[in-house]
């Protein structure tokens, strides 16, 4: 059970794609900052280098821009400490972001991409069946996990006036 070292793979990636920034985070995973157009090639490159296990794909809303995060790692039977790699695409516009889908490469991310679309509104080109997964199909309220999301559904009138009954201390 020898610890798995993925540094050579990252050097090879750096050699292949110089524009990529690779950094090791304090909490033990590797961040790979990628630009939008190189994203799919980098993921394909990593897959060929043996990163076969799709952990999950999600997005982070930094209030002015969206950042897509794809987590992969090498599932090598008998290995220890197989570190996680986060492929990050920053600077996506908050509405109408278009990102190539990785479902053809990793079928396991099919629903994760649909959930990210459902929650953040990032459209994935090439996804076999991109529609909302958790929210009802006829949901018009926008994408809930965005920081500026306001629930526009009509407020039901509150039947009992809450304030008067309880004498709050």
């Amino acid at each position, binding site marked *: *059970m020898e610890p798995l070292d993925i540094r050579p793979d990252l050097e090879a990636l750096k050699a292949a794609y110089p524009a990529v920034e690779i950094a090791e*985070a*304090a*909490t*033990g*995973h590797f961040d790979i900052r990628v630009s939008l157009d190189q994203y799919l090639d980098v993921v394909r490159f990593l897959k060929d280098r043996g990163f*076969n*296990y*799709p*952990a*999950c794909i*999600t997005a*982070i*809303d930094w209030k002015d821009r969206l950042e897509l*995060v794809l*987590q992969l*790692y090498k*599932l090598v*039977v*008998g*290995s*220890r*400490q*197989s570190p*996680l790699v*986060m492929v990050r695409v920053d600077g996506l516009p908050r509405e109408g972001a278009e990102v190539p889908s990785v479902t053809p490469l*990793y*079928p*396991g*991310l*099919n*629903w*994760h991409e649909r*959930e990210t679309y459902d*929650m953040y509104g990032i459209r994935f080109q090439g996804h076999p069946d991109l529609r*909302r*997964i*958790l*929210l*009802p199909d006829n949901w018009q309220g926008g994408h*809930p*996990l965005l920081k500026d*999301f306001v629930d526009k559904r009509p407020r039901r009138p509150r039947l009992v006036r809450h304030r008067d009954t309880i004498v709050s201390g």
Partner: protein
Amino acid sequence: MEQTRELLINMGPQHPSTHGVLRVLLKLDGETITWAEPDIGYLHRCFEKLSESKTYPQVIPYTDRTDYLSAITNEHAFCLAVEKLMGIEVPERAEYIRVMMAELQRICSHLLGLGAMALDLGAVTGFLYAWRDREKIYSLFERITGGRMLYNYLRIGGVRNDLPEGIIGTPRDGRDKADKTIWGFINYFESYVLPEWDDLLTNNRIFQWRTQGVAPLPSEVAIAYGASGPVLRASGVKWDLRKNVPYSIYDRFEFDIPVGKENGDCFDRWVVRVEEMRQSARIVKQALQWLAENPGDYIAPKLPRVLKPPKGEVYIRYEGSRGEVGVHLVSDGSANPYKVKWRSPCFTHLQLLPVLAPGHKLADMIAIIGSIDIVLGEVDR
């Protein structure tokens, strides 16, 4: 000539054997399924949006509610993530208590998963036996944490309260003390319950008819679809995060990882889970020995009332009872987590249904759903 036109039916969301509010759209040609599509979202409680407006300790009760059948493992995952983010050192006694509770919870959740699958296949007695043993674990948990199913027992940095007096008991406790002391339960569990499971169901001819050869899952497809936990191991991939990506103090325990054959089918997923319960019992025994040898009461470090972890991100992978639970925390230095992403194994396993179901009979669909053992709380979050 008049073809038997395909029957489109939907199973659920109030179907008795879909383990909660899952709706599966099925196209049937006569008796065989030609197309299956799960439809989820009926139990979506926006866990991730909620936790963005809560402080770190306040999020812990929410994590219980995701996979409500193994609450301790979820709490454990979240606490590990925060501790890694803030670099908190957890006292050793708390670590042992956490591991013991997590493994007991794994036994309990497997019992229910196996019992529910047995019930769907018609073995009502198997289901009730699972219920009986779960009650014993619940009475233990009630004495330790106060709750029976959702505990809010773990705290960031340790546990809320120490184990009550005399709950560990002595290794000689037998069946009579099964719900009084943990040793009593473990001895009762290993000597009486596990052999009974094998006789009642695993070696039952009709059970084997219904499950063997149903929905085989090759290991490459399992890995490509992100399967994890018992489903992945049943397909012959020896991958257990407690061993391969050790967290907490799991590297101090020795236990082995049950693995199914290459094309693991429903029966292998069943056998792997039964075997895993045996391994969890072994871990609990080792934890109990350590807890008995060094009593103490230091269970949680002094932490400021309002936790403000440094800016940064963490993604930890935890071996939940149903698979790999991923917690991705992003913190901006404030008291509230900026983003919490809960990578749920059941959510990922449900993607296997459209791959596994076609070609099988309608009755097999029940066995398939039972064998991948999904909990809708975790699927919909």
